[in-house]
């Protein structure tokens, strides 16, 4: 490549301190844009995934399990826990007007003790009536789960064929589920019969808080779908009024808190991106003005050698765009290094589901970050570039002796 064509690159490489400062400014901007977009997208996907996983219009739990310390604690905060009600509640719920489907689930938490492989949340479902867990399991495992077979969430370290022990009962891992970005990724799922065996064992070892229950006749919650056209609020009220000792909640209200937080976070990220853009724009404008002013004599010299206004503008723009593109890629890379490996930690910190965007979305955000960085660079310097390229060469040489 000819020296004149290489000049923008050489100016960057041979003035490392100045280039590093400019690259840092652009990188901060693209880090914020890309990292913010990925985080909000991850939270939105996690939220959609959670809604998908809840997969029912209404949840019915024992009265004492309603609220933060019960179901929401397990589903939203990723805590382990369990609670029970008599399984006759299922029939009562099914009898309520407007209910079209009702599927029970049975919970159990294993312990971080010698009887168990790990402390995890165990969730049992009834294969005959389930309409939330099975469709998800079917994506990873087409067979029917046999007794003492379990499927594990994507964050559980076991693999297919491994043996997991709960309350000294061995279970075989039949499959591993696809990632949801929710706390379900840290759960173990099994058929109701398997969970009842584990619950019996926990009671037998006096390791279950509910020592009086009959594991064969209890359930933890009932997931309900309403009939088409039914008023969900009326169905919730009817369940709460007619079924003793339970609390019915719309699943929408469970996630509405998350949705509210998510909107709050989205707003904060948007404001942060605007603030960083404005700050970066101002700092870049000052930096590029200094850069161009400092080199006015050099630009005048290039004109003396026969570089036209257009060629000079292209050369200066190339340098600015090279800085912006390189800085943007550094910022995106840094954001990737923070968001991807630490998405689990972010999820835990925020108590919110998070599912990282796919490659296509990542590329879209990368493009967005690069375009915004390039726009900031060009907009912040266009006046100066235009001024220096159109300057009277003779006057520029005199002023900058």
């Amino acid at each position, binding site marked *: 490549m*000819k*020296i*004149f*064509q290489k*000049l923008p690159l*050489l*100016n960057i490489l*041979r*003035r490392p301190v100045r280039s590093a400062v400019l690259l840092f400014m652009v990188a901060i901007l693209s880090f914020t844009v890309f990292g913010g977009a990925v985080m909000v997208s991850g939270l939105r996907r996690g939220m959609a995934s959670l809604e998908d996983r809840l997969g029912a219009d209404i949840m019915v739990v024992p009265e004492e399990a309603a609220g933060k310390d019960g179901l929401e604690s397990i589903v939203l905060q990723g805590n382990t826990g369990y609670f029970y009600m008599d399984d006759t509640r299922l029939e009562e719920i099914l009898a309520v007007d407007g209910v079209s489907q009702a599927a029970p689930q049975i919970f159990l938490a294993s312990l971080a003790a010698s009887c168990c492989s790990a402390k995890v949340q165990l969730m049992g479902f009834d294969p005959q009536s389930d309409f939330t867990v099975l469709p998800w399991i079917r994506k990873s495992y087409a067979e029917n789960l046999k007794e003492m077979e379990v499927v594990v969430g994507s964050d559980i370290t076991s693999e297919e064929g491994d043996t997991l022990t709960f309350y000294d009962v061995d279970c075989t891992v039949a499959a591993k589920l696809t990632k949801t970005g929710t706390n379900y990724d840290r759960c173990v799922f099994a058929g109701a019969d398997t969970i009842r065996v584990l619950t019996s064992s926990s009671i037998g070892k006096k390791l279950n808080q509910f020592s009086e229950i009959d594991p064969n006749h209890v359930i933890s919650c009932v997931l309900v779908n309403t009939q088409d056209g039914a008023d969900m609020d009326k169905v919730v009220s009817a369940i709460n009024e007619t079924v003793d000792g339970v609390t019915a909640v719309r699943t929408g209200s469970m996630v509405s808190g998350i949705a509210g937080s998510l909107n709050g976070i989205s707003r904060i990220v948007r404001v942060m991106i605007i603030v960083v853009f404005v700050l970066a724009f101002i700092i870049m404008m000052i930096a590029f003005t200094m850069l161009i002013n400092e*080199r006015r*004599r*050099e630009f*005048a*010299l*290039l*004109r*003396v*050698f*026969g*570089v*036209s*206004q*257009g*060629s000079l503008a292209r050369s200066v723009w190339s340098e600015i765009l090279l800085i912006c593109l390189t800085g943007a890629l550094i910022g995106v890379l840094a954001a990737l290094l923070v968001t991807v490996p630490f998405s689990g930690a972010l999820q835990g910190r925020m108590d919110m589901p998070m599912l990282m965007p796919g490659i296509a979305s990542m590329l879209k955000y990368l493009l967005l970050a690069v375009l915004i960085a390039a726009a900031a660079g060009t907009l912040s310097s266009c006046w100066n570039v235009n001024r220096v390229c159109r300057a*009277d*060469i*003779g*006057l520029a*040489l*005199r002023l900058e*002796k």
Partner: protein
Amino acid sequence: MILTAEKISRSFPRGSREFYALQETDITLAGGRMTVLQGRSGSGKTTLLNILAGLQSPSSGRVLAQMTRGAEDGSVQGEMAPAATDLYSLDDKELSRFRNDHYGIVPQGQSAVAALSVLENIMLPGTVYSQDVNLPEKAQALMERMGIADLKNAFPKELSGGEMRRMSIARAMIRDPQVLFADEPASDLDDENRDTVFSILREIADEGKAVLVVTHERCARNYADEVYQMDAGALRLA
């Protein structure tokens, strides 16, 4: 090439009045001759050089470049081409190309691209448009002629004033120009470096180039074919 300025002047507004940095002037530069332009600071010497070099448009008049036939293909001597080029009738692109093809210019003061080495600085004008395959050899030969061959990988901030001027002259010569303009090429130099610079400029004129030197140095007269004196924008033969 014969470069002729016809009735050129340059004025600037100063308050409500027009200030004439250069009064109506005629001058001709011809190949093989070294012309020295002297005068006090602010007398209009650099303005005249800039106008002749296509760097600053005149307020009136025109600058005509009459090519020799040989000059169009790179040699210096030859028959006169029938038409002269009016520099300031060219658009920026054409005038820039003209400067690159036909002029070598040694600007006043520090005149290097800081990010380029001495060799790269010298080669730079030769790479703005098409690149001559022999450019590195030409640059090497010029550096040897200027006595700066051992500095080819040095950067401008490492050079002394004299070395910087010699680098500027080498760079101005890299395109084998028809006309060489040098603005204060010996200012701030010691006697030895000053004599070296003027000797080199004299040699260049002897090779057939037109050389215009703007300088305060009285000793430049010893090397000149013509000496002009500039006083308050008015030019006269000394």
